[in-house]
């Protein structure tokens, strides 16, 4: 065999040898090129973290979105600040303060708006209520007016309490007064104070006749100025929101709480968790890869050579990416993953073979010559085939994937060059240590050798597994829900999911544009009739129905409550002088309540009166207890109670009076700040379509989107984009992989010039792919936007692994047992193990997308290992014998 070396054998042998002989120059050249690359990358490589840019704008759903963005750019990359407080007054006030504060910060935010705080809605909000609702409000106001009027003159605790006492006494005389809500409200407020978790009484809720809810929510929308040249584009605006919130009273101990969500915040948390996950996994990976390398090569020098060649190759590939593409996006950045996963492998193969050869050929130059000849050929086949596989991604619509293909394909060639040039050169300074069959190798060999007795079983099991996998294939799913990729513990994710539950106000809704008012009305009516749609909002909804009738009702309200104005109270001196007086007043109220309960059993106000009496008894007991001691404690307590009960009253009345000045609304009188959200300067009308179901569920989302698209094909918005992008990505990958397969088949045919070898190489690859697909069904790891990136890597590993083994078998004619004893088998094992060590850790990432990528890689790599080490040797068995007979004949 040695005599009949092919041309390529001689070429690579000489190449490697000369690299070794000119080691200093090669190393210097590599270092200087790497240094230049670093400088060039630092100056020129951009990162574009905008995920929507990754798909070509020619795809219809992107074109629809672009058209929409043209008319309504203000909704892109918004953040939603979700504010909660125990009362509507507090949350409203806080939202208003925060919105104003952010509106001033034009450096960080394009615009900020709080619709509920808009002067227009503050004045005209009542017109958006229904007529029965308005009548109910009138009744409640009528019931509360006498009480409020009496307090208004002197809004202090003792006035309030004595007015209540009078009212209770009137109840006792048989007058009909609606005091139940007041009793319950006051009782709940006192109890909250006594338990130490104060909760201010909401007069707005009380006047509206509703039981005060646990929490009231308002939304402030803001559009941050995102800096896509930064990895964390939203970092600065988010920090600005947090500090502004803190300044306007959202402190840790405040009753008002703020959470940040919305597209931009989700993207931020997504990247943040992905980066942190990758960072932690990266450190662990480095440690584990080093252990695998040291264990496999038993040579520190070799491990250093591999890491060095990896770094040089990675930087050169990044430099190529800078020249060829100019920027990285969230998918093409995965070239690093691919390079680390595959780039090391060539060096491992090279060095392990070198170690093997040096056992028989001790001279470094001779052994390198031989390794060069043998490995050069097989590494070339691997690199070319894998590169063709990656280049096949380039014609897809998915620009992220296309760019990834270009960068990674070239990366494989670079890795080949580095392995054949830098690695031999480094042998001069960091030579691999040669050991005779260490125990570890023996034990590995034993493991690899295990399946030899059960060939029939392997064939039977394989066929059964193939059948089972084919049955499972239709159940492979793609999860296009981006929230499922994100960190489930992130504030933005949890908040967003909470908002999605209320489908009627879902932050994910479909938007579309109509060109005129008639069309808007027509489409809105047709969509509203769909069972998948709960409501459609357009500018037409900003003009309420029955306004004349409602205006009369509102004027009625104004007449009924009359002018109310509050006297100023200086709370300080009032509290100091009247602890005793206030206590007496409270006691009187309690007595009246007890008597009322006794006299009017079964009265509708009996239960709330009883509750209030209990609360008062507790409060009085507390007052008596500390009476003996420090008087200021009582003063403080009463002051606090006074604040809890009455502090929100004047403002509530003021807002009510503002709302009573509602004016008839027409499309023409809508303020620009409002109408511009629905009617763009270029004449387009916006419609927002809300789902009936929670579209956090993929099937519900699909039903919703498809139903709306039937009526309005130009529909866009997050649900449409994620569904369509998901399908586009799936299509792109199917297309890319079909092309890759074709490319790989052609490459193998040309390089092997032998159909059997090609089929033998492809079989484990295809089987591994099939089993991996079935594995995702079995383990419930649907494909998604993140883990789909693992597929090219699996493709590369699959090609390389099976090809090395087939090549070794074909070239050197080693049979089953000895084949698994070769350095090639071990090199494949270590390569795959380094990949597992490198990426398996991702499973623990807080970012679910990354974690699922780690899981998918683990499944895929395991399947590849089984196919290459268990099934492939069985397949190589029979043609092997033929080959041996052939060669012995020759």
């Amino acid at each position, binding site marked *: 065999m040695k005599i009949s070396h092919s041309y390529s054998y001689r070429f690579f042998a000489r190449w490697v040898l000369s690299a070794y002989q000119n080691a200093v120059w090669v190393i210097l050249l590599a270092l200087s090129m790497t240094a230049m690359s670093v400088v060039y990358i630092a100056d020129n490589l951009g990162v574009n973290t905008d995920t929507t840019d990754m798909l070509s704008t020619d795809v219809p759903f992107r074109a629809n979105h672009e058209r929409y963005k043209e008319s309504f750019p203000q909704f892109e990359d918004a953040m939603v600040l979700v504010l909660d407080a125990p009362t509507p007054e507090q949350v409203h006030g806080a939202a208003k303060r925060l919105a104003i504060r952010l509106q001033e910060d034009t450096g960080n935010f394009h615009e900020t708006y709080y619709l509920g705080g808009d002067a227009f809605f503050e004045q005209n909000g009542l017109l958006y209520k229904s*007529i029965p609702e308005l*009548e109910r409000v*009138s*009744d409640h*106001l*009528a*019931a509360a*007016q*006498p009480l409020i*009027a*009496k307090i*208004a*003159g002197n809004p202090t605790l003792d006035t309030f309490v004595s007015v209540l006492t009078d009212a209770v006494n009137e109840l006792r005389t048989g007058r*009909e*007064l*609606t005091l139940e809500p007041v009793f319950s409200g006051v009782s709940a407020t006192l109890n909250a104070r006594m338990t130490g978790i104060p909760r201010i009484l909401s007069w707005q809720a009380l006047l509206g006749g509703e039981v005060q809810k646990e929490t009231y929510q308002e939304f402030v929308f803001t559009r941050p100025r995102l800096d896509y040249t930064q990895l964390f584009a939203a970092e600065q605006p988010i920090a600005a929101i947090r500090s502004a919130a803190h300044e306007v009273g959202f402190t840790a101990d405040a009753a008002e709480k703020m959470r940040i969500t919305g597209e931009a915040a989700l993207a931020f948390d997504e990247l943040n968790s992905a980066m942190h996950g990758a960072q932690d996994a990266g450190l662990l990976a480095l440690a584990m890869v080093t252990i695998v390398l040291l264990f496999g090569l038993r040579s520190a020098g070799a491990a250093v050579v591999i890491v060095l060649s990896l770094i040089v190759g990675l930087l050169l590939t990044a430099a190529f990416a800078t020249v060829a593409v100019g920027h990285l996006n969230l998918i093409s950045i995965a070239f690093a993953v691919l390079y680390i996963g595959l780039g090391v492998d060539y060096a491992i193969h090279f060095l392990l073979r070198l170690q093997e050869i040096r056992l028989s050929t001790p001279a470094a130059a001779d052994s390198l010559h031989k390794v060069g000849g043998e490995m050069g050929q097989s590494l070339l086949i691997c690199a070319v085939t894998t590169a063709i596989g990656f280049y096949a991604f380039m014609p897809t619509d998915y620009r992220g994937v296309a760019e990834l293909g270009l960068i990674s394909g070239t990366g494989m060639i670079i890795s080949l060059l580095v392995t054949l040039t830098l690695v031999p050169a480094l042998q001069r300074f960091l030579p691999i240590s040669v050991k005779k069959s260490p125990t570890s190798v023996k034990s590995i060999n034993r493991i690899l050798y295990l399946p030899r007795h059960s060939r029939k079983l392997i064939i039977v099991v394989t066929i059964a597994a193939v059948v089972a996998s084919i049955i499972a294939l239709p159940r492979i799913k793609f999860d296009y829900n981006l929230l499922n990729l994100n960190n489930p513990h992130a504030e933005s994710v949890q908040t967003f999911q909470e908002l999605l539950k209320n489908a009627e106000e879902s932050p994910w809704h479909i938007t579309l544009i109509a060109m005129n008012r008639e069309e808007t009305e027509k489409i809105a009516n047709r969509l509203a009739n769909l069972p998948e749609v709960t409501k459609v909002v357009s500018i037409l909804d900003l003009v309420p129905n029955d306004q004349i*009738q409602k205006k*009369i*009702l509102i*004027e*009625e309200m*104004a*007449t*009924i*409550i*009359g*002018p*109310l104005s509050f006297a100023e109270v200086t709370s300080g001196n009032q509290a100091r002088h009247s602890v005793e007086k206030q206590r007496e007043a409270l006691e009187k109220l309690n007595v009246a309540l007890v008597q009322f309960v006794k006299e009017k059993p079964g009265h509708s106000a009996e239960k709330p009166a009883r509750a209030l009496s209990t609360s008062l008894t507790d409060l009085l007991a507390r007052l008596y207890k500390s009476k003996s001691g420090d008087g200021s404690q009582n003063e403080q307590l009463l002051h606090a109670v006074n604040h809890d009960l009455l502090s929100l009253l004047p403002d509530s009345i003021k807002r009510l*009076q503002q709302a*009573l*000045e509602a004016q008839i609304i027409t499309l023409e009188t809508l303020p620009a700040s409002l109408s511009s959200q629905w009617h763009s300067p270029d004449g387009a009308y916006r419609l927002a379509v809300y789902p009936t179901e929670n579209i956090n569920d993929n099937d519900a989302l699909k039903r919703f989107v498809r139903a709306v698209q039937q009526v309005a094909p130009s529909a866009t918005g997050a649900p449409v984009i994620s569904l369509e992008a998901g399908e586009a990505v799936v299509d792109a990958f199917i297309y890319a992989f079909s092309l890759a397969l074709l490319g790989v088949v052609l490459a193998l045919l040309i390089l092997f010039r032998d159909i059997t070898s090609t089929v033998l190489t492809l079989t484990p690859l295809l089987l591994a792919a099939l089993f991996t697909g079935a594995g995702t069904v079995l383990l419930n790891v649907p494909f998604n936007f993140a883990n789909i990136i693992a597929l090219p890597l699996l493709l590369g590993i699959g090609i390389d692994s099976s090809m090395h083994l087939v090549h070794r078998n074909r070239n050197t004619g080693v049979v089953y047992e000895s084949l698994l004893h070769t350095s090639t088998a071990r090199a494949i094992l270590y390569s795959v193990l380094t990949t597992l060590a490198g990426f398996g850790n991702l499973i623990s990432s807080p970012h679910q997308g990354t974690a699922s990528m780690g899981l998918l890689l683990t499944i895929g790599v395991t399947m590849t290992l089984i196919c290459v080490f268990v099934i492939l040797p069985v397949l190589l068995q029979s043609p092997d014998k033929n080959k041996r007979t052939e060669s012995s004949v020759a």
Partner: protein
Amino acid sequence: MLAGRIVDMKVKQTIKLMQLILMGVLLWSVAMASAASDTAAKSPEQVVHHLQSSLIQAMRQGSQLSYQGRFDFLSPVITQSHNFDLIIKTILGATYWAQLTQEQQNLIMNTFRQLSVATYAGQFTHHEGEQFEIIEQRALPHDQILVRSQLVKSDGGIVNFDYVLQQSDGLQWRIVNILFDGVSDLAIKRREYRAILQRDGFTALVEMLKEKIALTRQNQ
């Protein structure tokens, strides 16, 4: 002669002019008088003042006049100064009001008006030196005007009477709500009447109003 004719003409002209002026003055005074008797020209403050002075007058003559006498004396004043149409409509609610027939509307409006007059006649029975004082007049939203006044009792006690007035049928300012120490009369009546309406219906409400009128009469 010529001069005589000229003088004669001048005299005639002067007489004519005098006649014109006289007629003008006459017309003007008539117009003024009619304007003065017409509430349309009264300011909100004047409407309140007229009502209050009539009340004081009814109290002063309280001992001479019977209940019926006070009722008859106050009835036109109160009817003219209050917008009962709007008051009862607001109390019952515009939506409910629209559901009533014309007869029902007339019935409830008249009954309510009578009750209002009866209440005044029953309450302002004798004079003990009370005095009404108007404090201020200011504009409210919805083209309403607030006239604030106080009833100063002989013992120095004060009750705030605040009137909300609205212009109706063109120019007349009429009372639509009264606040006693801030408590809205409309609010109290709305709560009370609507409770009866919802529980027992329209007829029961009318019956209740009639009962109240009878009760006021009896209590005299």
